[in-house]
């Protein structure tokens, strides 16, 4: 995966959090990941097909997703809303990338999992890049891997 591709996804993160003008989103230096993928409380996985094959996932702690739900003006947060929210975040980041990558960039509906233990086969191509995303004092991760 190229560096330029990565900046498209981080652009998607920026674009998503722009709707909350009161808080700033900060992305730290990305690093490669080959196995032992990091999974926090809620994760949404999206498969990518077309000329770029692979996938991405967003993983966040419960406290952050609750803050997001509050920021959207919805709530109170429960498990269903949290899954809904994380799915929408992943969908936005992946969907927005199409503006640069064009119509050949196809994305799946998000699959949401909780916690570390799950039997989802990650569509992410290896080596994947991990971008730590900080918002309102919480740390979450965007992991992207495409061929």
């Amino acid at each position, binding site marked *: 995966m190229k560096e330029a591709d990565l900046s498209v996804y981080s652009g998607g993160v920026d674009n998503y959090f722009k709707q909350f003008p009161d808080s700033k989103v900060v992305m730290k230096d990305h690093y490669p990941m*080959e196995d032992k993928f990091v999974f926090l409380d809620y994760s949404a996985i999206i498969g990518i097909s077309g000329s770029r094959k692979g996938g991405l996932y967003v993983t966040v702690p419960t406290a952050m997703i609750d803050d997001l739900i509050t920021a959207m003006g919805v709530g109170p947060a429960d498990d269903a809303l949290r899954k809904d929210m994380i799915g929408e975040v992943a969908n936005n980041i992946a969907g927005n990338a199409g503006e640069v990558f064009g119509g050949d960039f196809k994305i799946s509906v998000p699959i949401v999992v909780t916690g570390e233990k799950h039997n989802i086969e990650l569509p992410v191509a*290896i080596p994947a890049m991990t971008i730590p995303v900080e918002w309102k004092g919480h740390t979450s991760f965007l992991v992207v891997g495409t061929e």
Partner: protein
Amino acid sequence: MRKKRKNIPKSENFSVYLNKTRNDWLKIVSMLSFTLIPTFIVLDYIVMPDELFAKFMIFRLVVSGILIIQYIILRMSSRYASLHGLFITILAGTMIALMTNDLGGFDSGYYAGLNLVMMAVVILVPWGFAHGILNALTIIGIYAIVNVLNLHSFQIENLINNMYFLFSTALIAVSVSQIRLQLLRKEFDANIHLIIAKEEQDTIMNSVDEGLFIVQQEKEDEYVIGSQQSEAVTQILGTSSLAGKGFLEALSPYFPEKIITDLAEYLFMIFNRDVDNDLIRDLNPLEKLEADIPSELEIENKMLKFEFKPIRQMSGEKSYLISIKDVSKEVEMENRMLNNEIKAEHESQMMLAILQQGPAMLQDFVHGVETEISDIEKAISTDNNTEELSDAIETIFRAAHSMKGNAALLNLKFFAEQLDVFEEKIIELRDSDKLVREDLQTIESDLDIIKEVYTTLQGLIKNIQEFQGKKETETQETALESIPGALTELVGRISVELGKKVRLIAEKTDFTGLPASSAYIIRDILVQLTRNSITHGLEEPEARVKSGKDETGSITLNMQPDGDSFMIDYRDDGKSFDFAAIRKKGLESGKILESEVEQWNDTKLLKLIFDSGFSTAGESTMHAGRGVGMDIVKQRIKNMGGDFKIKYRQGEYTEFKITIPIKVLQEV
């Protein structure tokens, strides 16, 4: 083409046009006359008294003959239109006047023929008032004079009646003629405006830099280019005129098929759907695009920018003005600026990194890189047999790897990245089956890039040293002492990047008796060991907690003289060697034979790690996995007549005890 008309005064211009038009009509009048006049012979034969028939026939034939001659003159020259008009008037008028005289003068009803003459001569030709009245009065005058000169008895009521009708016809004919003259004037002005507008349009179309033309939708999937286009279209696209061609077909040679299908969809949208200007702009598939333009000799690559501007035509149909710009230069400029920015960013990053380092470290680093580069150059210029070639490659490899490690140690990211690229190249060479001398020369240009970055770096370091006012000799003393600090930083950086928690504890650091020049070697060994520990040995925090360890891994370091030797005691509390992985890797790489796998015990496997080109990391990263780390350690120590021992316990720790004769260190 009626060009340059604009320069002639308008009024003079109109008189030329008027004359020409009058001449055209006169020809018609003349033609009508010389066909109609003899045709009346048939009527004469039926209605005229026998004695007059022959006379009238001669009249008619003579007049027709003259008119034919006039017609020929009219065809040859368009001058004297009004004289020609007057001539026909007199000729035809006199003939009919003479005939009325023969038929009974003012009492005859044959005067009606004069109305026909008046209509032909006055109405058909756009004379306007003056000439119209002149012609009409001439006809009436001739009628009156002829019949007065050879006066027959007549009833006054008949004369009044005839004059009444003749003057009424004259009035109508003159009015129509005047209106025709005015219309002609308007027509002329409109034409002049069109010509001027066309000329202006041509001037614009030939001088703009953009390719311009209009596209209209003909059928559902047919978009046609209009008849007008700017000259730049042919220059930019290198084709002849596109007028009348299909827009999609005209563009298909320049762009890939996908773009053309996207364009077809887009055109369908902008022509058939209600879209606003923002959408037309935002969804434009030809916003900035590479196009292959065939020129005389080769295919030229241009960056083209298309714009679509909607035009509502009078008919209410939609059409679009297309503008094409060649933005190759702008794009190139943008890229160059971007490159400069990146370069500047790298320099400032290196600057920042340098500023954070102690001068001793930097001096030492510069020293080390110089040695490595000269080693590489020596290796490249080797001109011996294959065996020595592969040795040369190994030397280059080790040197590059070592430089990379040291660059990473000082956080000189850009330099380290460049070295990583260089290393990649060498791996390719090493893995190729048939290595020839020329292959070595291919990396010279890559080495030049490294040298260039290094020169920049050296300049920066020098500037800073001058700025800080420190002399080389003063800084030499502390090169050794700065090692633990630099290692701590390296550990911090790598562990964050790999998602691990590690701390470095330097317990004893006594460099008594060691010259500053030995700092490079010692640090080099420690850098390789540290990277290796963090990448392979030390576990992720979660794994450590699970196995009952502190989530932060630790590396303990003791360095001190021990008799004639200098002793480095290095230990990490990681999971130690993964023999299963080493065995697997050995099998894959063919170093271990399937049949002998039983015989490979841990000690034997351990030796394998120190073989050049062996690594257990899955993919190589900036930090480890090239398979030279341990190899370098072994080589460096052996070269100095030193020795090292390994102690480990699976899942608990790995320890290296390294001894190097101080004497050798002093000679470096």
